[in-house]
């Protein structure tokens, strides 16, 4: 009995808290699944994406400024001649012709590189190229898209496959969605969306919430995404000179989404106050007048002078420190603890999570001053987190990652991005700053499930040569498997169909 409940925990650890089982993962953790999860917390195990194109934000923005100059020059050189247009098109919409998820991107699908045991190396080269044939040599994508693809590849062919369980990676995905930016805002955001996640999110996944919050709100990606570089203190020097005023966008989302939550007890006055407090938080431009180009800077001339009152507390004007102090207080606010605890429990456990679990997480958050390692630990240690019923549905991102891990596939990033786009969760491009939805209803939609079936079918067709479906579900889903799913997989008329059923089974779709 103890043995079988450990097996069950191993299954849950990998699917509910991890990235999904690879070959061998279930066995590897089955002696102590919860211990293996806690170890990831203790070791602060968050894999780091790497690659030549994955530079720091400032370098990426410097490259971007140069790229824009080149485009401009090229346009001016041949103003009347259509052929003179730069490859990338005008800067307003340079990605228009290269968005992932267009039908072309969908045509080619993941190539299973995880060779089936026993298949000789000599046989793999004759596997045919992707469904649409090898693409004709395409022009190199414009810089922002190139970097975006490299960031995607570093994850789907990199960090996805690294961890044994991947709780840290799941948390990185969770927090990147909590502090959502969108690459669809424009080419600058596209080029740094991945860097934002690398720089502001990952280092703090098992660190302090305050540090993550500070890193996020001072990151060029967030400042550009929510327009804070356009916000001027009405009474600041620059505001007066340029006749410019406040933009409340970032301040509102800090309160509503990032910290207190929509019912966190703030007023419109608080929003305006916080907007004033963070005036001057901006990104240095290409000329670098305020500092090294493409970095966060506090631009005192745009900062609204004077003390501000926020949530009943007064913050004296100490320049940048005024905002730092305000954010520190917001991170410590009890409503923030409840908001974060609710979102975490909803994400990992249930749409409507047990109240006792939410309270325990919130309590841990408050008593540790927002230390996310003990908060994560509390989540793992709570029995409420281990109900054997699989209630949540994997988001498209979680689903794709689970397929990649289960099969060992490392397809071209366009293919993964295309599939995510088709299923309604394009990478780092939510419709708004509230990120993608985290409830069952959002993902168990008719179109969504239908699309998943086509994608599962395609992935299964690619993987059919490498896996024996009954063995595949045993090693990937093992203790979670129902008798009915076993029967459906073993009765399939082909390996490909058996794999497709495995991918679409309730045990694979849910967690």
């Amino acid at each position, binding site marked *: 009995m103890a043995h079988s409940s450990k097996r069950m925990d191993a299954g849950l650890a990998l699917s509910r808290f991890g990235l999904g089982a690879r070959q061998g993962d279930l066995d590897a953790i089955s002696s102590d699944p919860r211990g293996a999860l806690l170890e990831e917390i203790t070791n602060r195990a968050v894999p780091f994406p790497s690659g030549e194109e994955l530079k720091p934000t400032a370098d990426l923005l410097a490259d971007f400024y140069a790229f824009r100059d080149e485009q401009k020059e090229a346009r001016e050189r041949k103003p009347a001649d259509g052929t003179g247009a730069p490859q990338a098109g005008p800067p307003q919409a340079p990605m228009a012709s290269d968005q992932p998820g267009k039908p072309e991107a969908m045509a080619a699908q993941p190539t299973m590189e995880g060779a089936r045991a026993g298949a000789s190396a000599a046989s793999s080269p*004759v596997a045919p190229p992707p469904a649409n044939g090898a693409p004709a040599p395409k022009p190199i994508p414009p810089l922002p898209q190139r970097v975006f693809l490299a960031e995607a590849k570093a994850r789907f062919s990199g960090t996805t496959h690294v961890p044994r369980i991947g709780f840290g990676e799941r948390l990185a995905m969770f927090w990147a969605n909590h502090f959502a930016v969108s690459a669809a805002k424009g080419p600058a955001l596209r080029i740094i969306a991945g860097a934002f996640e690398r720089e502001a999110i990952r280092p703090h996944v098992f660190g302090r919430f305050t540090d993550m919050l500070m890193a996020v709100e001072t990151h060029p990606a967030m400042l550009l995404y929510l327009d804070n570089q356009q916000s001027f203190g009405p009474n600041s020097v620059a505001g007066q000179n340029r006749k410019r005023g406040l933009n409340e966008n970032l301040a509102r989302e800090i309160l509503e989404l990032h910290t207190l939550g929509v019912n966190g007890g703030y007023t419109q006055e608080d929003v305006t106050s916080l907007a004033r407090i963070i005036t001057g938080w901006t990104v240095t431009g290409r000329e670098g007048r305020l500092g090294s180009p493409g970095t966060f800077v506090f631009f005192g001339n745009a900062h609204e002078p004077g003390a501000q009152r926020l949530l009943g507390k007064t913050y004296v004007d100490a320049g940048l420190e005024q905002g730092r102090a305000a954010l520190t207080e917001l991170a410590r606010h009890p409503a923030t603890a409840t908001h974060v605890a609710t979102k975490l429990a909803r994400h990992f456990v249930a749409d409507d999570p047990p109240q006792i679990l939410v309270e325990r997480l919130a309590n841990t958050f408050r008593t540790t001053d927002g230390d996310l390692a003990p908060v994560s630990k509390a989540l793992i240690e709570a029995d409420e987190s281990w109900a054997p019923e699989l209630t949540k549905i994997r988001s498209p991102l979680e689903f794709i990652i689970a397929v990649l891990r289960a099969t060992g596939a490392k397809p071209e990033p366009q293919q993964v991005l295309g599939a995510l786009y088709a299923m309604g969760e394009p990478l780092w491009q939510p419709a708004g700053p509230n990120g993608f939805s985290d409830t069952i209803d959002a993902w168990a939609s008719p179109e969504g499930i239908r699309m998943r079936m086509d994608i599962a079918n395609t992935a299964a067709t690619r993987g059919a040569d490498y896996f024996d479906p009954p063995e595949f579900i045993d090693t990937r889903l093992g203790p979670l498997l129902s008798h009915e799913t076993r029967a459906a997989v073993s009765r399939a008329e082909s390996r490909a169909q058996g794999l497709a*059923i495995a991918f679409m089974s309730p045990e694979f779709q849910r967690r």
Partner: protein
Amino acid sequence: MLCETMTTSRRAVLGASGALFAWAFMPRWAQAARGRDARFVTIILRGALDGLTAVPPLGDPDYEALRQGIALHAQGPNPALPLDGFFALHPSMPNFARLFRAGQASVVHASATAYRDRSHFDGQDVLESGYETPGRVDSGWLNRMLIGLPKGEKIAPGASEQAVGLAVGANAPLVIRGRAPVLGWAPAVLPQAGDDLAMRLMDLYGQRDPLLAHALAEGIATGKIATGIELGARGGPGDPEGMKHLAAGAAKLLAQPEGPRIAALAFEGWDTHAQEIGRLARLLSGLDGAFAAFEQELGSLWKDTAILVATEFGRTARVNGTEGTDHGTGTTAFLAGGAIRGGRVIADWPGLKDVQLRDGRDLAATTDLRAIAKGIAVDLLGASPAILARDVFPGSEKVAPAKDLIA
């Protein structure tokens, strides 16, 4: 479009394979086998075709009693098409019937591979690998046959991009995978999941997950309205239009002067446990359309073409409780093409009485499918029987190549 795809695919496949040097000879069957520049196509039917419905033995006195509600008849509405007085052909296959009458198509009945269990996965392994037992999946018999064909002039390393084999579909069927370089082609569409997968998932969700069941049902219904066609009718290997499309594409590539000579395709959806009449009518019309597509697109090359259609095993002789049939043994293979000595149903008919059925349930297998494949390989392509027995179908020394299959 097609040619462009071919060129780039070929380059990609060969460039990546490193197998180019292992394939430093052009095959020379133009000299080896009756001066023909032959084309050979193998179509795998995944899921186990019910040979007793595809080619019903109307002359067998026990047929109708076994088949009851799914039996075909020579008269009445939708009658089976006559073949030789004993066997008839499913009414969904008028093209094949025409080819049969023209002496360009034959049927092999009561045939099977060396496999005698009833698992699709293992059965397909045996059918495609050419080994006697399952579990060997590193290469297929077509590919090993390519390697063993008589060599012509030596090709300077890197001097030619010639790939003699063609794998059609989103993944290469095992039958043509292996050391010899193979060109890959598939239509540039996202292969849609077919009706059969959707039905199986609906069944599973119905038992386990009402929420997913509801979502999928609605998704399918919406998809039908949006496209105006059935799910899966956009080109997958499990629907008639897709089969024709795949066949036409393969034929165009085979017709290229410098193109491949040997192709493998796989069609899906033949696992008819329930409601077999409607499903097989649809699938067999797709297969029939594929024959027509090959004939049309190959043009003058059709006369030197042989198509072998085979499935992993047959189905139960008796109809089951859901108007379908379960996994069995003996079944039908089809031969078509101008190079086929056609107009014959090749069968050592075992009969359908209880004692004649294998395990009292399956059509017994009296013809070894390997003999058929070997016969074509020898007489059409000039393959050596010794190599066929040693490398292509290991352990098949006692299975002699069938004679007179090729005109």
